[in-house]
């Protein structure tokens, strides 16, 4: 058990293992996404009230789910980086920020596009949507804050603190549809009790959520590999890697 943690803390090991995982995980993820998109777009029946516009659910919900999960990972990595000063945690935190920002952006844009035919407006300053916009700014804030410091150790500390403080936004996002009167519908999928969505629509949605998680994992590894090379550029193993050619 401890040896796994020990290995996880080693950038050369992580670089090597992520390369071999990505070789099969990335093509499988892209294929799973293509299947899920075709399933949701072409093979499910339209919603009885919303018509075909509801098909946006198959990207909007998975993107929002992964955007939130990404924040947990970023804050957790930030905490580990602050407490134990683990290099890999620092690299993971930095990798999460642009990926999380991209998924939050997708959730917001697809939500706006879905809102127009459903609510009659692209945007409302509704609790759920506004708290998701705050999430986007938190992610972008971490990216900008890291770039603003010349001393990267201080940058990491500041980013870890920002991501931990930003955690306060996460329960607000989850509960916003229950706490405030909102245009945004409450959750259709419930862990306890029945879901208010038909199984023929639910299965492709689960498929897409799983595919988006796999996509997040792939992106994490891709961004972490770049970070590892950038921070370890002067070390012997990276020089050996460069002299052998890219792997």
């Amino acid at each position, binding site marked *: 058990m401890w040896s796994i943690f020990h290995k996880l803390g080693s950038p050369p090991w992580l670089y090597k293992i992520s390369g071999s995982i990505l070789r099969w995980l990335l093509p499988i993820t892209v294929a799973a996404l293509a299947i899920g998109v075709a399933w949701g777009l*072409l093979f499910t029946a339209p919603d009885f009230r919303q*018509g075909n516009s509801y098909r946006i659910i198959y990207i909007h919900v998975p993107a929002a789910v992964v955007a939130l999960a990404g924040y947990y990972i970023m804050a957790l990595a930030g905490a580990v980086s602050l407490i134990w000063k683990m290099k890999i945690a620092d690299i993971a935190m930095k990798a999460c920020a642009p990926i999380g920002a991209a998924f939050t952006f*997708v959730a917001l*844009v697809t939500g706006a*596009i879905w809102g127009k035919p459903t609510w009659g407006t692209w945007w409302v300053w509704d609790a759920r949507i506004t708290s998701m916009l705050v999430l986007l700014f938190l992610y972008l804030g971490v990216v900008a804050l890291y770039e603003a410091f010349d001393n990267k150790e201080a940058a990491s500390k500041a980013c870890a603190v920002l991501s931990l403080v930003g955690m306060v936004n996460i329960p607000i996002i989850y509960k916003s549809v229950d706490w405030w009167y909102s245009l945004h519908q409450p959750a259709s999928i419930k862990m306890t009790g029945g879901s208010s969505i038909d199984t023929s629509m639910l299965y492709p949605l689960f498929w897409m959520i799983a595919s988006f998680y796999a996509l997040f994992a792939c992106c994490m590894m*891709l961004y972490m590999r*770049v970070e590892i090379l950038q921070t370890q550029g002067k070390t012997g193993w*990276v*020089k050996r*890697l460069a002299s052998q050619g890219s792997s």
Partner: protein
Amino acid sequence: MYFDSLSGALQMGGHGGFVWSAYLITVVVVSCLIILPKRKEKQIILALQGALNRQHRD
């Protein structure tokens, strides 16, 4: 398949513009998320190789 023609799938009963544009934007963003770090990784390795070659020559 739910739609019986290509134009039916494209139009989606008047919602085609919304649905397809949402998917298109997602595809573009996701492609960038995959391509940009891959390209950056290659650039870093090439730059390191260049630096190593210069060191060998000097």
